[in-house]
């Protein structure tokens, strides 16, 4: 190949790549327009309704069951998508000497906040975690390299890592949802697999006290919108400006 041919070849190649890229971009943006979700999923959790049934674990059990979250004896190896922690731990920054006694035995449900400005997404070196248009912070279990930078970045302790092979520790494997291999991070996905079928998240669905309210913030008539307009609500560590989509009401 002489110099002239090489330049021609390189020119055609460069043009080809540029054309391919721009077609890609156009088609992507079109796809984005089509898919452009008008949804903004959010959840409100009522402390008082949740507290009515002491020791109830229905939401935790159903979530971990359908999502194949394993159960380990050693808490160090443990994983959790949704869990209960004492109020004074979860809201350590929102207690005072007077409410401390009142809230002493209050358990608070915790899960991924699906932040508007998720710190975990920013730090991921492989884009294995990303925010969807509808606000759900997603995980790609097949791309995650297990560096756990997202776990260090999450201010809510919402992310778990598969320290061991989870499969032997899953009691009943749900074939409709993928199980994970060791060495990847996972967390609550707001039941996106159910949402895509028009169902509400399993934890919301199963709660006997209707303590969990889920819906679309872009729809002013959704239950969650109405509740958040009508009642006083708090968020976990709001001063970090992550914009949690999980709200707590009394």
């Amino acid at each position: 190949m002489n110099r002239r041919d090489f330049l021609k070849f390189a020119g055609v190649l460069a043009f080809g790549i540029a054309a391919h890229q721009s077609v890609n971009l156009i088609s992507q943006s079109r796809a984005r327009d089509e898919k452009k979700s008008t949804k903004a999923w959010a959840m409100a959790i009522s402390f008082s309704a949740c507290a009515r049934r002491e020791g109830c674990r229905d939401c935790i059990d159903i979530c971990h069951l359908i999502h194949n979250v394993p159960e380990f004896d050693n808490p160090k190896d443990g994983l959790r998508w949704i869990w209960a922690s004492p109020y004074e731990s979860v809201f350590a920054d929102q207690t005072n000497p007077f409410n401390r006694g009142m809230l002493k035995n209050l358990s608070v449900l915790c899960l991924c906040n699906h932040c508007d400005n998720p710190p975990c997404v920013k730090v991921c070196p492989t884009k294995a975690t990303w925010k969807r248009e509808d606000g759900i912070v997603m995980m790609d279990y097949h791309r995650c390299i297990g560096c756990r930078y997202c776990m260090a970045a999450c201010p809510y302790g919402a992310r778990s890592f598969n320290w061991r092979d989870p499969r032997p520790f899953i009691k009943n494997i749900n074939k409709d949802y993928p199980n994970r291999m060791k060495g990847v991070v996972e967390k609550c996905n707001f039941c996106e697999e159910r949402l895509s079928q028009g169902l509400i998240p399993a934890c919301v669905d199963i709660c006997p006290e209707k303590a969990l309210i889920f819906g679309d913030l872009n729809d002013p008539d959704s239950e969650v919108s109405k509740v958040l307009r009508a009642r006083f609500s708090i968020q976990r560590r709001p001063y970090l400006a992550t914009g949690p989509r999980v709200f707590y009401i009394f």
Partner: protein
Amino acid sequence: MIEKALKGGSRYWLWIGFLFVLIIVGFLSYLKQLAHGLGITGMGRDVSWGLYIANFTFFVGVAASAVVVVLPYYIHDYKRFKGITILGEFLAISAVIMTILFIFVDLGAPSRVLNIILYPSPSSLLFWDMVVLTGYLILNIIIGWWSLDAEDKEMEQPRWIRPLVYISIPWAISIHTVTAFIYSGLIARSFWHTALLAPRFLASAFASGPSLLIILSLIAKRWAGLEVERDAIKKVSVIIAYALAIHIFFVLVEIFTVFYGDMPAHTDHFRFLFLGVTGKRFLVPWAWGSVICALIAFITLLKNSDRLNEKPLVFACILTILSIWAEKGIGLVIAGFIPTPLDEIPRYYPTLFEVLICIGIYATGFLVLTVLYKIAASIRGKNRPFS
């Protein structure tokens, strides 16, 4: 030139053999970790980074600190640094290799490591750390190798090396700055979320890295007959003393800011580190050990600065390395996770396998270092038992 590393006395081969044994033990432990998962380490849900990332952070500092000898030698044309500069560059190479290995063994899914390149994510500091560490490794290999090769052939150093050296100087600063940004960019952990972290990292690196370099230089001088000027050692020891002073100052600045402000979210980590919380005091000996080592090292270096007795110098260097390793490695990484976002005080103890893997990586670093120093010695050194 590599063939020069294949000729050596019995002591040389004994040392190489010893390192290989450690590497094999480390490698077998790593295979065990691969089979079982990272649950084999002391890390867990709450303390999700441990000894690997601590060592990674420390050795990035060691790698960056080569600039302490490269800068005077190349920019200020300080000829007496000739002997120690090549040792510094080679130390940087082996330190970067160790940092890459420490990151690699920390990955849960190492077979997917190329995803960092396949899906480049400029918003992630880990992506940038990969870029700067790889670049720094390549720069140092080229600079160190070709300048020694020129010497071997008794030629002038090739002219294109100069611009690479000039690039390598800010590049060295960048590797430790980016490493600090990995931590300081996180709002979730108030212990790390301080703009002082990168300057602190650099100050402590310029104390600990050159300390290691002095010890290695003295060993290379004695065992391989490598020429390292006394004056170079003396100058570097002064640099260590000042870097240590700046490091101590930075830590005190941090402590003032945190405790005068007295916000629990900020003080809790320091309280846990230096005093322990609810009976859990496993980091307290490391924290105070680090403080005491730094102070003794600083005083020893000051007292020794005009005479340069080797024994107190080596003593001070060892204390400096231990102090910074405990402070920047163990203390910084683990206390960042404790208390957790849910205000818990978890435990973290490295396991045997975790320690063996670390030792295997140290041995790999030392093997690379030994081979590189051996080559340097066979070109520059006088015949000694080790060469």
